[in-house]
């Protein structure tokens, strides 16, 4: 049973349907309880997928605000038991549910091992990868083929989130399951972005036993950072603004106290430029703007504490103890930016800026030190 949330909305009503696949356990990879697969490609057990999927599920269940396509269902397949048959069953149910209305929003999330083959196949590994040594790839599916075969799906808004490594392997792969095997007979316009946690050939990262950096970024962007425009009552998160924000947010990852420019990849999808999908609405008070302030010349950074103050909100923060360049997430507003220098600095002052507006998607200012 993988249907974890069912709001029981009328089938014909447009709604959002989420499919989450989270594979922690790989019995036939390194460190697993089963017989090792003929090829493990150096891959082993994971701890981030299930916490990541749970985080995303909880957000959609408790926070999604979309009057046009409210949350309908959440289907989740998670370790233990995230085998390919389980995944295929959940996929089929999700596929059929989404097909009930072309205005439905279909959201697909996978977190587990991913491999890129020599012949450009993106293989996502299920829990039973390697279970059959004569056919180890029976426990994997081809994401690219799945994506292409969904071209004629009667659900025009499809969001794909791949929270998996993209390690390259020297083998060619053929004949993997595509979850949907029927090839498309037509190619109507669709909004189908593919957001990947990392760039080609690289690893997707996260702290042990906790949500991945990509899932954290996704929730942050949905919740507050990924807005596009104000429609008079709320700020809209759409598939275009979400992608743009994910890239920026991933570049702000803090890993072990260090800033990591994690290379999120938002290409490879199909986005009809005629319309973007409205995913979520954010109340103005909840919006945060990814900001960056730095000194010019940068040599003044070490001596300076920068301050951002929004008078109408009586909101003030400063950069003391923060990594540089300073990257706070600020409420919407008009900020007075200033800085103070430590005693003995080679610089005498930092020129202030008044009423600089923090507006999405990003807000950057440099403060001149003299």
């Amino acid at each position, binding site marked *: 049973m993988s249907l974890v949330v069912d709001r029981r909305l009328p089938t014909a009503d447009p709604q959002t349907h989420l499919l989450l696949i989270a594979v922690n356990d790989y019995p036939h990879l390194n460190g697993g309880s089963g017989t090792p697969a003929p090829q493990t490609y150096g891959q082993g057990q994971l701890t981030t997928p299930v916490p990541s999927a749970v985080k995303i599920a909880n957000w959609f269940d408790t926070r999604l605000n979309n009057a046009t396509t409210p949350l309908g269902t959440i289907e989740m397949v998670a370790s233990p038991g995230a085998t390919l048959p389980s995944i295929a069953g959940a996929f089929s149910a999700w596929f059929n549910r989404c097909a009930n209305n072309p205005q439905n929003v279909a959201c697909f999330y996978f977190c587990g091992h991913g491999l*890129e*083959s*020599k*012949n*450009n*196949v993106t293989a996502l590994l299920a829990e039973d990868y390697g279970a059959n040594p004569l056919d180890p790839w029976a426990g994997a599916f081809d994401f*690219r*083929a799945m994506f*292409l*075969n969904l071209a004629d799906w009667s659900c025009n808004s499809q969001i794909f989130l791949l929270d998996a490594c993209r390690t*390259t392997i020297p083998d060619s792969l053929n004949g993997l399951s*595509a979850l949907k*095997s*029927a*090839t498309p*007979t*037509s*190619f109507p*316009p669709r909004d189908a972005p593919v957001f990947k946690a990392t*760039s*080609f*050939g*690289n690893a997707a990262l996260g702290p042990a036993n906790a949500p991945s950096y990509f899932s954290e970024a996704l929730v942050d962007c949905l919740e507050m950072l990924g807005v*596009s*425009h*104000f429609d008079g009552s709320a700020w809209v998160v759409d598939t*275009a*603004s979400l*992608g*743009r924000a994910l*890239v*920026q947010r991933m*570049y702000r990852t803090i890993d072990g106290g260090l800033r*990591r*420019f994690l*290379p999120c*990849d*938002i*290409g*490879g999808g*199909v*986005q*009809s*430029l*005629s319309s*973007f999908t409205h995913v979520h609405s954010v109340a*103005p008070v909840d919006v945060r703007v990814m900001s*960056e302030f*730095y000194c010019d010349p*940068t040599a003044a950074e070490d001596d300076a504490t920068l301050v951002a103050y929004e008078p109408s909100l009586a909101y003030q923060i400063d950069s003391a103890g923060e990594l540089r*360049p300073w990257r706070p997430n600020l409420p*919407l507003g*008009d900020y007075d930016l200033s800085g103070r220098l430590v005693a003995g600095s080679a610089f005498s002052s930092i020129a202030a800026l008044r*009423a*600089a*507006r923090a*507006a999405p998607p*990003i*807000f*950057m200012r440099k403060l001149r030190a003299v």
Partner: protein
Amino acid sequence: MSTLRIRFAPYVSDSGKAVVPLRIIDRNWRNIAGNWELTLDNPVDVPVEPGNFTVQAFMPTGEVISQEVAVVANETADVSLEPEIASPREDLAWGYLLKGTSRAAAAKHRHTWSIEARDPVLELWELSYDQRWDKIGLPAPLQHRVDGASFGSGSMRTSGKLVWLRIAWTAERAKFVALPPAETVRFNLFYDPPEIEGGDPVNVVVDAGNPRAESILGYLRRGDFASARQVGANFTAENLLREKLRDPASAAIGGYFLLQAADFVRLHNWTERLSEWFEYIPDGAVILAWHALWSSPPDFDLARGQLIEATHRGLPVYTIGLRLLSDGLSLCAARALKLTGKEDSDIARALEIVGTYAAAADWASAATSFYGMQPDKPWHY
């Protein structure tokens, strides 16, 4: 009524006709109605009610430039937009403003640093029909090295052929980057330190000379579809397609944009001509193939033939085209197996060739780029 006179602060020469989308936000956070855009070498006047506004410009590099302005009744207020990352020379501005010094999808704030890599070694190769690679010599020595930023830049004439630049940054690491066919194609080798030790430190940006097309390509490459759509609303892609005789590379960009926009009315039958008239450019065949697939009903036979033809011609000049070629061949292969129960040998052969290049591709590059020491042996390190 009042006016905001918005201009791009730096003087731009060769990239002056590039267009960037603007967003103008009023005090109440509402966007000013209208599809506003800024041509880099010309100010734009925007009529507004008196008040305070924030003007944002979305650069193809991923940078968002913003500036606040207040305007009183019946007056004109000047808005000068200044990018954070400046070009050291006016004639290099195209690389800094339209391409970006980093392959990152977002503009990374850069502190000055020293190039911690030796100068790359360059070669020129030509790809001709049926995947034949020939080394054709060396480019002229790079010019305008900029410490901390660029190994140097160059230009050459590439009309009528598919030329590739080989860049080796160590004795064991190299990549190939397509130079679009043009009267003058420019390239700049930016120093772009990799996140991973031993990774590729060279961001090669190329430009075929049409600033409007190149800015569209930049938005599509970075996944900034909102900006691409805004610029493309007034984008005369059909003019580019009409001008394909003069500028087939930019015509290809126009074709890719209109495919992405699903604007099949504007595509007309120009895609057939683009493919027919320029037999040495694979991109035309790729665009025609996908135009055929997205037609109603899809013309699978035409698509199949064009995808195979594209592979005979070589590799698409632009990464968008490589993606479409790879996907198209995969679809045709799967479809043949479903319909006949047998493999389509021509498609399979094409897919094998394209698949190996796709697996070695640098997908962050706008111009097709793949890793490998030899052009017929692509390999992603």
